């Protein structure tokens, strides 16, 4: 029995516990609602979180790359990146998987499983940074692109473009 096989065999219980641990990072009154298994459009946080965690468990049970982990983590991290979590709390749910793993698998797998979860954590950290950068970029450029762009097309304002600035530097 390999670790991957163990993860595969314990998929349902791992998902159930990991999902609950993740939802429990929200305030208790909210967790009661977000933890419900209802129509995904009535509870997007619950549905997207469950799907992301499920995708990650499937990846861990097969051959995976860090890119694939990041892609699977994106939906849940993208949500947590705009919620009231500190950077650490936004990705801490990944670490919960270590303890959960210990409750369902043989102790001989602990060390290997911990390393696996560390990889997921690093992928999660990468993704969190990417989402936060997306947010800062939107903050920095939104009004410029929506309003300034229209004025510029109309020739009512004129600003040097990036390439113009780079050109003047060269000359």
């Amino acid at each position: 029995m390999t670790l991957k096989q163990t993860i595969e065999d314990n998929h349902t219980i791992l998902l159930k516990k990991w999902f609950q641990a993740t939802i429990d990072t929200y305030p208790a009154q909210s967790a009661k609602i977000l933890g419900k298994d209802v129509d995904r459009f009535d509870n997007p946080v619950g549905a997207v979180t469950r799907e992301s965690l499920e995708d990650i468990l499937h990846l861990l049970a097969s051959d995976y790359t860090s890119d694939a982990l990041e892609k699977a983590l994106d939906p849940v991290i993208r949500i947590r990146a705009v919620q009231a979590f500190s950077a650490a709390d936004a990705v801490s749910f990944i670490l919960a998987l270590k303890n959960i793993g210990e409750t369902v698998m043989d102790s001989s797998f602990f060390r290997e499983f911990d390393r696996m979860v560390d990889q997921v954590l690093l992928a999660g950290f990468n993704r969190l940074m990417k989402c936060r950068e997306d947010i800062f970029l939107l903050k920095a450029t939104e009004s410029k692109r929506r309003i300034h762009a229209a004025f510029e097309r109309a020739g009512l304002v004129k600003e040097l473009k990036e390439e113009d600035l780079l050109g003047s530097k060269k000359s």
Partner: protein
Amino acid sequence: MADEITPDELLDKIDYGTPSGDWMDTTKSVQIRPGMYCYAAKAESVETLGLPNARPWNPVEDDWKLPDDWQQILHEGIKERLERFRTFKIFMDVCVRCGACADKCHFFLGTGDPKNMPVLRSELLRSVYRNDFTTAGKILQKIPGGQRLGGNRPLTLDALKEMWYYFFQCTECRRCSVFCPYGIDTAEITIMARELFNLIGLNIDWIATPVSNCYQTGNHLGIQPHAFKDMLEFFVEDIEDITGVDCTPNFQKKGADILFITPSGDVFADPGTYTCQGYLILFQYLKEKYGLDVTWSTYASEGGNFGFFTSHETMKRLNAKMYAEAKRLGVKWILGGECGHMWRVIHQYMDTMNGPADFLEVPVNPITGTRFDNAASTKMVHITEFTADLIKHGKLELDKSRNANRIMTFHDSCNPARGMGLLDEPRYVINNVCDNFYEMPPNTIRENTFCCGSGAGLNAGENMELRMAGALPRATALKFVHEKFGVNTLGTICAIDRAALSTLCEYWVPDVEVAGIHELVGNALILPGEKERTEDLRMEPLPGCEEEE
């Protein structure tokens, strides 16, 4: 009945656990978090409007520079409004905290913050109401533990700060009211709360400065008349390049048939600018084919009304110029552009605020003879009703193939959908100018539509986290149709939506673009005397013309 809950199921729902703390105690630690709040109103904007307590202040600083008697001002403000607005009084009294609204709010669903459950957000104000204005509350506060028993709390500075924080995390979208068995309109509670905040100078700048601009210059962006005209003339040049037809509009034309007013976002902000070009093309078509005379105004150059997010009086002041200009120009009635809250103001408030507009006629479409009885008192018709009517009567020549690259879905903007019941007309227009239309899931459209997350004055840049969290429910539905049907365009009839949803798409569903419905109409409409078009209004190749580029 199949949907009846069995006793066992009901018992399963009961939580026997003890809450870890009293929710009202959390006011001790109200955290005003960057990314979730909007900057404070600039003193000069508050001053322009003659509103109280104009001064620089910062929500994250301890001292909000409130007047010494702020509690008295708010107490009297609440009292006055309880007497003046029967709805406010009923909504304060009647809620039974059933929780039907709890998981219906996009901000709760997106942020996971329990105080964004509409019931709990309203409770922030209700608890003060119960404490200061109800007999039971007054008795209970004298008994040890009575306040907690009655759910009362005094109006402390922390309570005020908490209310301010959360009532500016509500977009007044009214989705929760659809599910309330008592018909409580939580938006009205937010409206009242914001009106109360304005009594002590606690507005946000993304509302106060547009209101000030609109009051002084005529539109939210503060663009002066000549620039407004310049922008439209620039659109005319672009349209001429694309179609070969001159669509020069009338400005302030006395005796025109119709005065057209749209939100200034259509004139100054992408992608609304393409919708604006669609209007110009439509009006040129109607002029050429049927002799319809439409005029624009650089004075009434704003359809939106951020006064709505400030106070009833401010809303009235901004709205008045629509009627004033219609009267001055002697038009028959007013046609309004694609906008959201503008239509709630028009449909629910305009007539009682500034009406009756006896000098205008009940709107009749002179081309089809259709009488818009729904606008009999306001004298103002939504352009999608007008265009749908023209299409229904076969009055527009349309080439759908020009929008063949658009795989559409439609976002019902909260105010036209829930505020005036405009549900089918935009869909009818889309289906007549485009072949590929797919609805988002039923629990996310029409009366159940999810807000863009940026309405009611919250479309600022500094609260991006709040906006994106609030946008999650809409984005989840959009992503679904994008992945299932290949939807690449999100149609909408609101100027705030055109800006807000574009940003939503960039963060959540990057392959989807946002377009106004009249942008699609402008592409499809075959103008008399036009040249063979090879580009759409965004100056991108039309379907089938790609290789010519």
